[in-house]
C-alpha cells in the first residue's frame, strides 16, 4: 500500500480503494456470509477510513489499519443483526455467472465451492475472521492479531481450529 498523502485524504482513500477494495469486500463477505451486506459494509469501511484518517498512526501499516476498520465494521454489523442465511444456490449463481467451463465442470466446481462455502459458513464468526485475514488476504499471524485485537496465541489456536475444519472439507472434495 502506498504511503498516505496527508494533504489529499480523498486521493488517499481512492488509492486504497483501488488497491484493496475487492479484498476488503471479500474479507467482509467471509465474516458476514452475506454478499449484499458485504458491498454496503465495504463502502462504509472506506468512508469511515476517510473520516478517521487524521487518527491514523504512521507507525502501523496503512493496510493493517484499514483492515481493522473493515473487521470492526463487519463485527458491529453481526452484533446488530442476526446472520442471514443466504441460499447456497443464489450465491453460487452470483459467483459463477460466466460460462467458461462446460456444464459438467461447472457443476463439479460448484459442488466443491459449495462444500468450502458450507464449511466456512458453519465456522463461528471469530474463526471466519481469522480465515479471511490469513487465507484470503494473506496477512501473517502477528498482523491478524493486530487487526483483530486479540493475543497472538488466541489467533494461532483459532487458526488451528479453522484449519482442521477446512482440511476435512478439502479432503471430502478430493475423495469425491
Amino acid at each position, binding site marked *: 500500500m502506498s504511503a498516505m498523502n496527508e494533504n489529499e485524504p480523498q486521493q488517499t482513500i481512492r488509492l486504497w480503494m483501488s488497491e484493496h*477494495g475487492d479484498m476488503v469486500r471479500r474479507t467482509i463477505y467471509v465474516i458476514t456470509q452475506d454478499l449484499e451486506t458485504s458491498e454496503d459494509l465495504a*463502502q462504509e469501511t472506506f*468512508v469511515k477510513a*476517510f473520516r478517521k484518517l487524521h487518527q491514523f498512526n504512521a507507525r502501523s501499516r496503512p493496510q493493517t489499519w484499514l483492515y481493522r476498520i473493515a473487521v470492526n465494521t463487519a463485527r458491529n454489523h453481526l452484533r446488530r443483526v442476526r446472520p442471514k442465511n443466504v441460499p447456497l444456490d443464489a450465491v453460487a449463481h452470483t459467483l459463477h455467472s460466466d460460462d467458461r467451463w462446460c456444464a459438467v465442470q461447472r457443476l463439479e466446481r460448484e459442488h466443491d465451492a459449495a462444500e*468450502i462455502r458450507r464449511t466456512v459458513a458453519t465456522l463461528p464468526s471469530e474463526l471466519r475472521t481469522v*480465515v479471511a485475514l490469513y487465507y*484470503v488476504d494473506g496477512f501473517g499471524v502477528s498482523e491478524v492479531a493486530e487487526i483483530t485485537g486479540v493475543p497472538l496465541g488466541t489467533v494461532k489456536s483459532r487458526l488451528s481450529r479453522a484449519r482442521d475444519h477446512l*482440511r476435512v472439507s478439502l479432503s471430502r472434495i478430493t475423495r469425491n
Partner: protein
Amino acid sequence: MNSTHTDDDIARVLQEELANVTLSDRSRRLVCEQTARAWRSEQRLLRGLGIAAVAAGAVIVLNLAVLFTPAATRTQRHHLVTESPAALLQHRMEQTGSRRSM
C-alpha cells in the same frame, strides 16, 4: 483427518472461490461522492472556525489595548463619554482657562 492439505491449498481454494467477489464501480463512486461531500463540509466548518478565531482574536486585542491604556487617559475618556453636555462644556472651559493662565 487428511492432513496432506497445506495452508497454501486452503488459501488457493478460498481465493479462487472468492475471485468473483469484487467491490462494484457503483460502490466506488458512492464512496468518492460521500468523501467529497464530507471534505467540502469539513472545509466549510474550518473556514467558519477560522472566521470565528479571527473575530475572537480581534476582541482579545481590543481588550488588551484597553487594559494597557494609561489609567488617566481612560478616566478622561470616561468623563468625555459619560458626562452630560453641560458638564462637558464646563470641563472644556476649565481646560481652556487653565491653558490661558499658563
